């Protein structure tokens, strides 16, 4: 294949793309629909994952120490908790820190502050534990209970409490629901994406079906299979390229429009900012899928008419 043939193939592909106006528009629209679904799937997966991660990050458990516990023994306990593989971080607050935090929290409540002045500092030090996974809190609590029961931390630990038991329960429920939702959603999404891809492939197949006689004539005037097929592939790739760019352009105003709403509703993910910051990734996936779909569909569709 020489440069002249390549030039002719590209010219023929571009001309056919332009002159088959209606077929080109129909094929591009179908591909835009498919690529849009794929884009929405990408955003949905980001929103679900980020939301679950953020909710999990908010979950923690705290361990209140006895007021008599020495700082050294608390720090020893902290070190042993940190050594657990399921623990992400442990924050230590000494008795003074806890008192300051309490005062800040009840700054408007003069009566409470006054009575606190009379009793001194009634608070023990506090360890706040964040686990790597929400399901790990129960095993961490189990570890602490064993420490207390075995006597190792009996004189140190006063109370093991989840920050908010209801919150914890809700998170566990949420995690179960999202895990199931992710599984069901993933299956549904794959089925949906495959269906739209099949529809897009079929649209391109029909577009080429309308050119079947043309392909046969080209064959009969002595054109090689490659010389006939290549412009169709170029045309298909162009459909994918244009459809990809249109889809990316569509996502710009759409994500801007729903960006704030998703940030508020899903706890922090602004799809617009995400889209802008991950644009190269979206470009690669959307345009790449479009080009691949267009090229492969054309390649396959032309093949059946070349068998003469």
């Amino acid at each position, binding site marked *: 294949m020489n440069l*002249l043939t390549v030039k002719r193939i590209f010219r023929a592909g571009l001309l056919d793309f332009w002159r088959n106006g209606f077929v080109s528009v129909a094929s591009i629209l179908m591909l835009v629909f498919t690529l849009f679904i794929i884009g929405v799937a990408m955003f949905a997966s980001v929103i679900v994952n980020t939301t679950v991660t953020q909710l999990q990050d908010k979950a923690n458990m705290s361990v209140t120490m006895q007021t008599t516990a020495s700082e050294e023994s608390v720090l020893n306990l902290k070190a042993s908790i940190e050594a657990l593989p399921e623990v992400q971080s442990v924050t230590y607050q000494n008795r003074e820190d806890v008192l300051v935090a309490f005062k800040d929290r009840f700054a408007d409540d003069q009566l409470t502050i006054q009575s606190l002045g009379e009793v001194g500092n009634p608070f023990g030090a506090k360890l706040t534990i964040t686990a790597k996974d929400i399901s790990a809190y129960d095993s961490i609590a189990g570890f602490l209970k064993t420490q207390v029961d075995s006597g190792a931390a009996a004189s140190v630990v006063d109370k093991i409490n989840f920050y908010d038991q209801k919150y914890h329960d809700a998170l566990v429920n949420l995690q179960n629901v999202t895990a199931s939702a992710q599984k069901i959603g993933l299956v549904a999404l794959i089925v949906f994406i495959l269906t739209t891809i099949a529809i897009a492939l079929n649209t391109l197949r029909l577009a080429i079906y309308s050119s079947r006689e*043309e392909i046969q*004539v080209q*064959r009969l*005037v*002595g*054109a090689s299979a490659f010389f006939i097929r290549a412009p169709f592939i170029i045309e298909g790739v162009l459909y994918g390229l244009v459809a990809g760019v249109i889809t990316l352009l569509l996502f710009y105003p759409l994500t801007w429009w729903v960006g704030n709403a998703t940030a508020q509703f899903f706890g922090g993910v602004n799809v617009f900012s995400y889209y802008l910051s991950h644009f190269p990734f979206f470009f690669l996936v959307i345009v790449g899928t479009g080009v691949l779909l267009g090229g492969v569909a054309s390649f396959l569709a032309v093949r059946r008419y070349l068998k003469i």
Partner: protein
Amino acid sequence: MIYYDRVSKIYADNSTALEDVSFSIEPGEFVSIVGHSGAGKTTLVKMLLAEEKPSSGSVFFESINVHELPLSKMNALRRKIGTVFQDFRLLPNKTAYENVAFAMEAAGRGEEEIRSDVPHVLELVDLSDKLNNFPGELSGGEQQRVAIARAIVNQPDVIVADEPTGNLDPVNTFEIVQILKKINDLGTTIILTTHNKGVIDGLKKRVITMDRGKLVRDDKEGKYIL
């Protein structure tokens, strides 16, 4: 040059399109194949282009059995045979110029050659003023002349014209036949299928008569007799 050796074609529904047909064509001949619709004329030319395979027998072009050629080598053979069809079969999204140029591009000809030959060939068929018209903008006669220009532009050894005047009025029919005669005078072999009695009787060339798939007459300077 071309040899049909005991060619038969029986379709899946047991209908017989050709039955034990044998004949040969010499270089430079003008051969008309005549017969009623369904006599097997088009099947015969499709066999030469390897559009159809015979159920039995062989078709040779320059001692090559065309049905034993792999698809990859078929295009080289087809470039030696120019084809003209009743329904013109032009590429609808290409102009007259581009339709003719396509055959040259497919044969790997250079741009310079294409730029000089295509206008010349279109001038031969009297279409110099329609170079940039699409097939949809041309009359039937004009479209057929573009098809002839496309068929001859690569200077093939043979032109196969399958009912080229079937969709044309008498004036255009006469013009197309005159063009084919002129091409034959320049040394190109012509195979013409038709059921137009006037065309055949005016030609005074070899006539092969087909009837229900059988070759029933082969006359050197024949007439339309059925």
